[in-house]
Structure formats: C-alpha cells, structure tokens
C-alpha cells in the first residue's frame, strides 16, 4: 500500500473522530447554558441528532452533495453511497460517481465518514438555538431534512463542484457550509418558535434566564476546541505536514484572541468578565477562522479572532434586544461569525497558500475574492433561510413545533421524556423565571 494513502487515511479518520467528539461538546455547552428542567431533553436531542445525520447522510445526503451532476445538485450515485468508485485513486486516475472528491487520496468510506461528521455538526448547531421549547420529534424531523437535503444541496454548490465552486468561492473547512447553514436554520427555527416563556416582559425588556451549569458549559467548550483541531486541519484530507501544522496554529490563535477580546468587550459593556461570553468568544473565533484557516497567516488569524470576539458579544446583546431568543448564542457564534469568517477569506487570504488564486483585499488582490465570498454568503443565506423557514412551517403545520405552555413551565424533561436529569437534587426556588414572573410575561409569547 502506498504510504501516502496510509498516512492520509489515518489523518482523515483520526480528525473525523475528533469532529465526531464535537457532538459531546455541543451537548455539554447547550445543556449547561439551559435550565436543569430541560437538561434531559437537550442531551437527548444532541445524542440522537448524530444518529439521524448518519442515516440521512448515508441514504441521500452524500450522493446529493458529492455525486456527479448539475451545478445545483448531485445526481450520480445518489442513494446509499451506491455509485461506482475507485478511490483512493486521485485526479484523472479516479473513475467514479464522486469526482468532486477526487483530489483526496483516501478510500470512499473515509471520505464519507469525514463528510458525515461535518453534516452532523451543522445539525447539532440548531439544537441549542431552539432549546427549552421545541418538541423532540419535530426537532428530529427537521434534523433529517437538514442533513439529507438542505446541507447536501448547498454542499454541492460549495464542495461538490457546483456553481459557487466554479465561481471560485472559498470555504476551506466550512464557516459557511457548516456554521452559517446551521446558523440560518437555527435563526428561522427561533423565528417560527418565538421566545421562551418569561424571556421578555410586557414592556419589551429582556430577562436573564441563567443556565444551570457553567462547569458543563466550559467542559463542552474545551471539547469543541479540541474537536476543531480535527475540523480545520483535517479538512486538508491529506497529511500535508506544512499545511496541517499552520492550520492548527491559525485555528488556535484565532480562538485565543477571540477569548481575550470577548472577555474585554464583556467587561466594557456589561461590567464583569462573564464566563458565558468568554465561552461564546472562544467558539466565535474558531468559527470565524474555519473558512480562512488554510489561506491566511498566523498574524492574520490573530486579527480575525480578535474581531470575532467583539462581534459575538455585540451579537448576543443585539439578538436579545430584537427578541431573537437564542438560549445558547448559537446564532451569534455560528451565523454571525460564519458570515464574518467567510468574508475574511476575501480580506486576509494570501496567494502563496492558494494555487492559481489572487490574494485578498489586504494583500494586494483587490476586491475580486471578497465579492465572490459576499455572493456566496448572500446566495447561501437567502436559500437556507427560505428553505428552512418552509421546512419549519411545514413541520409546525403537520406535527406541531412547540410544547404546551404547561410543559414548557414544568420542563421538557418530564413532558417529552418522562425523565429528570437530577431527580435527587433539591430544586432552588429563588431564581427568577419561576411562578409569577412566567405568567406575567406570558403575553410576550408569539
């Protein structure tokens, strides 16, 4: 066996396993940032969503995304990974149904696993944004639609040789493909569901609904950070030593700078270094560097991270003000910084790391790449917004989307699952959002 194929396959599979582990990270962050009465429900959603992604992406998603076809979607080898394939042959030696992945010299199932864990990530982003009020089975149906249809079709445009790829749109590890898609789907879910009971008062002011376990939140953040060392460096899909080393460091540097700037922004705007904001800041830096990680210098990654850390705090506060109730900040982290990171390719990219491409605006390449990036952001944004909005509304019409008022007050753990995450803990009664405040804020619900 060719040693390069062995090394590349090991690299792809190990980094894919790291990305798989990010499911735990999302489960921990989201559970910790929500109330204990909904912990079982959030854990359940984050757990089963990977099963749903596996099924959806195997049945249809992979073929739709990477199968040879039109510029809009894949058509060959559509179902159950069933197309002809002679991987790990590459380039012109490759003969098969998934030619858009002929640049990586690993077996088809390694390609599938790596792409599957990415699709799973996009689906799990939605979970936190719609938490504490969505019906369990309605969420599962949406996850299936997202991973089997929405994610793969956009993925065909960007990574499957479709029209955005032809235009030169660059999204190395998925600031748009994974994070913005997840973010747009999350935003439309929030808009259809409306805010949680008790989040807004009659006069429109917002209440804090504190999460029940910041320790769990921080564990989740560290798990995600670790996973990102698979997410970004793994997207080379080859053990290219220079590239994976640099991407590892651009990824880490962006996270570090974003943590510092989000903490400082939190001090300036709120008064104290809020740990929840530092956690969101770390994740925002990671999301922002995801698209440009392979194309920018370590110095540029520091600037990108630093800006991302400020953006995420402003976004959390801004979304709260316009009554987009996102319990965990998924839209601020994944949508806002997914867009920002994608645009950063057009600003900070350097041609030394991009064969046959012009640099970004700040490195003498002019506006060309930036305008292509902007086109991609707008096209993907508009499409995912409309399609996911329709999907949410259909699910709402057919099976209902939101749990009953009583169930929401008592917690989804008992209502949806008949479980309790902490059955022998004494519940503290003195936090806000209990009893009278909930009923007082009831009219604010959409």
């Amino acid at each position, binding site marked *: 066996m060719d040693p390069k194929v062995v090394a590349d396959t090991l690299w792809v599979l190990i980094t894919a396993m790291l990305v798989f582990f990010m499911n735990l990270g999302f489960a921990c962050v989201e559970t910790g940032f929500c109330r204990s009465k909904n912990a079982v429900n959030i854990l359940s959603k984050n757990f089963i969503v990977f099963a749903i992604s596996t099924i959806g992406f195997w049945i249809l998603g992979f073929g739709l995304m990477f199968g040879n076809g039109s510029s809009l979607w894949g058509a060959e080898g559509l179902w159950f990974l069933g197309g002809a394939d002679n991987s790990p042959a590459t380039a012109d030696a490759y003969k098969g149904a998934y030619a858009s992945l002929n640049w990586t010299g690993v077996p088809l199932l390694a390609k599938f696993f790596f792409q599957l864990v990415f699709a799973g990530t996009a689906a799990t982003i939605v979970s936190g944004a719609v938490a504490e009020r969505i019906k369990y089975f309605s969420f599962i149906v949406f996850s299936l639609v997202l991973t089997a249809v929405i994610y793969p079709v956009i993925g065909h445009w960007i990574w499957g040789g479709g029209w955005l790829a032809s235009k030169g749109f660059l999204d190395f590890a998925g600031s748009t493909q994974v994070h913005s898609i997840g973010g747009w789907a999350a935003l439309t879910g929030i808009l259809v569901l409306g805010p949680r009971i008790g989040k807004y008062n009659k006069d429109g002011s*917002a*209440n*804090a609904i*504190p999460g029940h376990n910041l320790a769990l939140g921080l564990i989740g953040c560290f798990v995600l950070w670790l996973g990102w060392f698979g997410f970004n460096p793994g997207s080379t899909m080859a053990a290219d030593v220079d590239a994976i080393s640099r991407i590892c460091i651009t990824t880490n540097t962006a996270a570090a700078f974003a943590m510092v700037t989000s903490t400082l922004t939190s001090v300036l705007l709120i008064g104290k270094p809020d740990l*929840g*904001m530092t956690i969101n800041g770390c994740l925002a830096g990671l999301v922002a560097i995801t698209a440009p990680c392979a194309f920018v210098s370590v110095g540029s990654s520091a600037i990108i991270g630093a800006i991302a850390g400020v953006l995420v705090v402003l976004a959390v506060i801004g979304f*709260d003000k316009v009554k987009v109730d996102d319990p965990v*900040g998924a839209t601020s982290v994944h949508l806002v910084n997914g867009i920002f990171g994608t645009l950063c390719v057009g600003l900070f990219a350097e041609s030394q790391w991009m064969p046959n491409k012009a640099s970004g605006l700040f490195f003498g390449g002019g506006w060309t790449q930036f305008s292509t990036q902007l086109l991609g952001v707008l096209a993907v944004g508009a499409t995912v917004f409309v399609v996911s909005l329709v999907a949410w509304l259909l699910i709402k019409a057919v099976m209902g989307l939101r749990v009953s008022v009583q169930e929401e007050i008592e917690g989804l753990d008992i209502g949806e699952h008949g479980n309790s995450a902490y059955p022998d803990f004494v519940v503290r009664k*003195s936090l*806000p959002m209990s009893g009278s405040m909930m009923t007082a804020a009831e009219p604010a619900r959409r």
Partner: protein
Amino acid sequence: MRKIEAVIRPEKLDDVRKAIEAVGYPGITITEAEGHGKQKGVVQQWRGETYRVEFLPKIKLEIIVGDADVEQIVQAIIKAAKTGSVGDGKIFVSDVRDVIKIRTGERGDAAL
C-alpha cells in the same frame, strides 16, 4: 422562658453550634431558610442581562431557654456568627408562654 430565633449564614452553623455548646443549651431546632434584608438579595449577570437573586440561603435556629440563660447564648451566637459584612443575620428574642414535654407531660421550666 424565652425563644431565641437566629437567622445566620449557613456556613456559620458549625461555629455557632460549637459556641453555644460551650455555654450550654437545652436543645435546638434548625431550618434551612431563604430570605433577604435591606440589600434585597444580590445582582448576578448572565450573558448580557442582569438579574436579582432576591432570596439568599440562610439557616434559622430556634432555642428555648430559661430567662437567665438568654444573654450568654445570644452573646455566643453573635460572637460565632459575626463576620462584619452585610448578611450576618439577625437574632429575635421573644416570650414563650408554656413548654410541654410530650414524653412525660412535664410543663414549664421542668420541660426544658
């Protein structure tokens, strides 16, 4: 007979119990309580919004003693429970009309 009710910091319960044991007391009942004084709780923040936790956890202890023992127990509680910061709590002393020991039926001072 008097009832001494003291609302103290939960973390001071051990110190207070040891202090009144040194003085001597007939018996004690404690309750986990929540409440606030003039500060009306504490303000906390969560991701950009602030919120007030109005009721803080406290321990309420009740001791019934003869009139002569009130002052030394009160002083012992003060000494053990005081930190000098807001939230140290309060002590209430009130009259008790009667005490009945359920097992023997004894009443008044004999029942203490």
